[in-house]
């Protein structure tokens, strides 16, 4: 035996939840679009991970070559 939604409150909450879901989905899509736009504009997407990255910090390159 299932419980059926009888109170108008259930309908109002469902509508509110659908709108909220749409807003959140739209936000995810927007962040994705911004990411693609920034990558296509040539913006660097590399992050720091405790290794030497000459593309992020070009000043390191001469020091590394000198030490070899």
């Amino acid at each position, binding site marked *: 035996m299932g419980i059926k939604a*009888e*109170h108008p*409150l259930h309908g*109002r*909450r469902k*509508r*509110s939840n659908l*709108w*909220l879901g749409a807003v959140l989905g739209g936000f995810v899509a*927007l962040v994705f*679009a*911004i990411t*693609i*736009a*920034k990558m296509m*504009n040539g913006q660097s997407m590399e992050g720091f991970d405790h290794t030497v990255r000459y593309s992020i910090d070009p000043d390191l390159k001469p020091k590394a070559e000198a030490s070899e």
Partner: protein
Amino acid sequence: MSDATLNDFGNDSQFEDYFALLKPRVMSLVVFTAAVGLLVAPVGVNPVIGFASILFIALGAGASGALNMWWDADIDAIMSRTVKRPVPNGRVTPKNAMITGLWLSVIAVGMLALTANLFAAALLAFTIFFYAVIYTMWLKRWTPQNIVIGGAAGAFPPMVGWAVATGGVSVESVAMFLLIFMWTPPHFWALSLFMNDDYTKAGVPMLTVTHGTRVTRNNILGYTVLLFVLAIGTAFTSIGGPIYLTTAVVLNVMFLIGAFKLWKREDADADGDAYAAERKFFRLSLVYLFAHFAALLGDAVLRAFDLLAAWPVVI
């Protein structure tokens, strides 16, 4: 057989109640002026970045509105103009309005920093702070100059739009700021002339309440004269042009004539025709701002096609 309910959910908050909390009509003006500020800037912006930036600026403006509705719930409940807002109407609790405002502020500023640049985000953060704290919590209930100084909050959006494109401020962005800043007092004082009872009941020190309608009418005229000079002067900056100059001349002459009519009237005249001239002036003020910024956009289009090379840029 009806259910016996323990709780009354008649006032359960809906999504549209939270949307109303953001003052959508004010948001639409912010969106428009911020978009113009971005589009007239000499630096191009990727359409996706531009769209997202304007959206986050609008979200920031909405956050300010929510915080204002939280703080002013007591006086909103007294004024007929604002009694149907979500908080005084019981549809959204004051605590939820505050939480919504704070979180939307964080999201708007954070996302603008990631989408555009730190300067634009900092300017948006300052705008929200200025409106919520300086105007709403401090000036509004303290001084009759509340909307003169507080009007700066509404004047920042085109500067934020410009900052999204250029990363800074300039004479042109300050000119757009000043246009809205000087327009705000005549706009709101005209409103307060025919909504005076509301402000009196709520104890808000609008100029009409503290100094009377004669002083208010004098100040409307004074600010309109200053606005006239500023608005025409903007035509001779690098964002001005023939479309803007024509629009500015026509509308500022109309605005000045309207302000002069208000100045000549006494309260007896206004009571006699249900404040017809004041309401007409207020409606004109709405068209005024929209038309000026639309004209700036028109000249930006001409400039994009190299049709304004001969336009004199003096300022």
